[in-house]
């Protein structure tokens, strides 16, 4: 099994993503129609049954997430997280540019399930052209009547990775600094403007029309049992085919690199691969025969995350790359909680020291302490995940650090 399996991207480049009519011609908006024929509870159950788990990185069961939304409040929100900020990730952009109507349909399906006609798409500030395209797609869908009463407004981020965290994203839509909230309360109960809110990733929403059209069982039967469906991956780094692919979730990491990816660039040997974006673990070549699904990745101490696959060949300097990643987190920490605000900065300092040959064993010890506390005591996922590249490379590539010490 080394072929792509395209569901979300089946009609990529064959239909105009702005056009509802194009989408309807290839079977679009049938899922919403079916969803609206069901009562919201059954709809949520159906999505739960499909096993669809969040494609943004946390891997939470989507139907379960919806079921936390209380019924009574009048105003609720469906929010699409399109802030994909994990370096090496552009799959949500691809999904929108190839199949935007599926996202809109998915949001409307969710809207029916939780009883909301208010949708927001929070798109990262790096994609103003996609924002324009989405606005047209929404206008077209509204005009065609496909969305019915369901409204969608697009809001644009402005260069803050942390806004991919759902409560920071909510703060940002509200026009505040993108600082994550403490939880509980979770957005399902108290989200946008303190009203119940479902926040799902672009890819999660875009799966919904297909689940509704083809049935939960069909979806549950694709790929890995505990994380069914397909996943759109983006390949970057030292790879022959630096592009995107949609694969079933039981696809092996080795095949991603050597079959679809065409192997390491220039026929070199692989040193490491980082999956899930810059907060992901570095995976050594001995772990390549792992399926990409959420739980299999977790079992080797890694994470599927956003589905970015960053390949590094044998010539790469791991410490230099980690130094770069440390700088990323120092730049992107919101600055609210102490472990992350100060920790990301000190990690960067220590990494700079080691990378320039001025580090000592003591520095490595201190890095480990810092990493442990950031993971255990930070307020949100950013601070908790920021040390993962450091800890995973200290585990698998410690010699690279040691040879750079004074």
């Amino acid at each position, binding site marked *: 099994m080394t072929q792509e399996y395209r569901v979300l991207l089946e009609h990529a480049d064959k239909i105009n993503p702005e056009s509802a009519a194009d989408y309807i011609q290839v079977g679009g908006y049938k899922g919403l129609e079916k969803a609206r024929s069901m009562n919201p509870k059954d709809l949520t159950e159906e999505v739960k049954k499909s096993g669809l788990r969040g494609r943004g990185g946390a891997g939470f069961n989507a139907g379960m997430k919806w079921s936390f939304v209380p019924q009574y409040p009048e105003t609720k929100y469906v929010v699409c997280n399109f802030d994909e900020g994990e*370096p090496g990730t552009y799959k949500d952009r691809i999904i929108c540019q190839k199949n935007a109507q599926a996202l809109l349909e998915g949001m409307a399906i969710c809207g029916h399930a939780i009883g909301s006609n208010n949708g927001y798409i929070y798109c990262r500030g790096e*994609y103003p*052209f996609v924002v324009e395209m989405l606005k047209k797609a929404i206008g077209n869908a509204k005009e065609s009547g496909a969305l019915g009463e369901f409204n969608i407004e697009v*809001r*644009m*981020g402005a*260069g*803050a990775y942390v806004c991919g965290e759902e409560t920071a994203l909510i703060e940002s839509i509200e026009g505040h600094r993108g600082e994550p909230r403490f939880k509980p309360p979770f957005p399902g109960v108290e989200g946008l403007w303190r009203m119940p809110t479902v926040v799902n990733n672009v890819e999660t929403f875009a799966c919904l029309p297909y689940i509704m059209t083809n049935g939960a069982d069909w979806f549950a039967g694709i790929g890995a049992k505990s994380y069914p469906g397909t996943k759109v991956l983006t390949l970057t*780094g030292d790879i022959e085919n630096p592009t995107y692919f949609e694969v079933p979730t039981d696809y092996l990491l080795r095949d991603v690199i050597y079959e679809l990816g065409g192997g390491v660039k220039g026929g070199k040997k692989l040193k490491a691969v980082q999956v899930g974006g810059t907060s992901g673990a570095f995976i050594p070549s001995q772990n390549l025969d792992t399926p990409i699904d959420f739980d299999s990745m977790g079992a080797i101490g890694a994470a599927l995350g956003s589905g970015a696959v960053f390949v590094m060949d044998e010539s790469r300097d791991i410490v230099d790359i980690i130094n770069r*990643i440390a700088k990323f987190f120092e730049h992107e920490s919101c600055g609210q909680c102490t472990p992350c605000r100060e920790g990301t900065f000190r990690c960067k300092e220590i990494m700079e020291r080691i990378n320039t040959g001025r580090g000592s064993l003591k520095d490595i010890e201190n890095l480990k302490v810092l990493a442990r506390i950031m993971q255990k005591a930070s307020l949100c996922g950013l601070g908790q995940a920021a040390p993962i590249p450091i800890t995973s490379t200290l585990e698998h590539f410690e010699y690279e650090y040691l040879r750079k010490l004074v």
Partner: protein
Amino acid sequence: MANYMDIIAGCKDKTGGIIEAYHAIQKEYNYIPEEALKEAAKAFKLSEAQAFGVATFYSYLSVKKRGKYIIRMCESAPCHVAGADEVLKAMEAYLGIKVGETTPDNKFTLELTECVGQCQATPVVTINSEPVFNVKPEMVPGILAGYK
């Protein structure tokens, strides 16, 4: 050039839409002038300190004057390994400025950015948010010459 009062008035109906207003202001001015920030604070019922806190939180917003073209060099890991540092050096040399600075003719501002989501063709530079792909140091003069 549109008046910032009109721009803000155009966004006023969006609840919490101060960031939208900032984007619209920057589209005209390339940064958020002080008077515009104060006006936006009023329109969205924030204190000036709060509006300033929002404007300084997001790296794509600027409260300092910038050039006509904002060049952003992506330095995230995939672009880094593809040679972003060399491209940046070439940019600095060609423009005669350092990161964060604006050319004396107010034409270019050079900034660093994290991933811009165009990783199929690294390293990536964006100029007023338009991505330029697979940039090599020797391509820099040619690329920038296209911006008048």
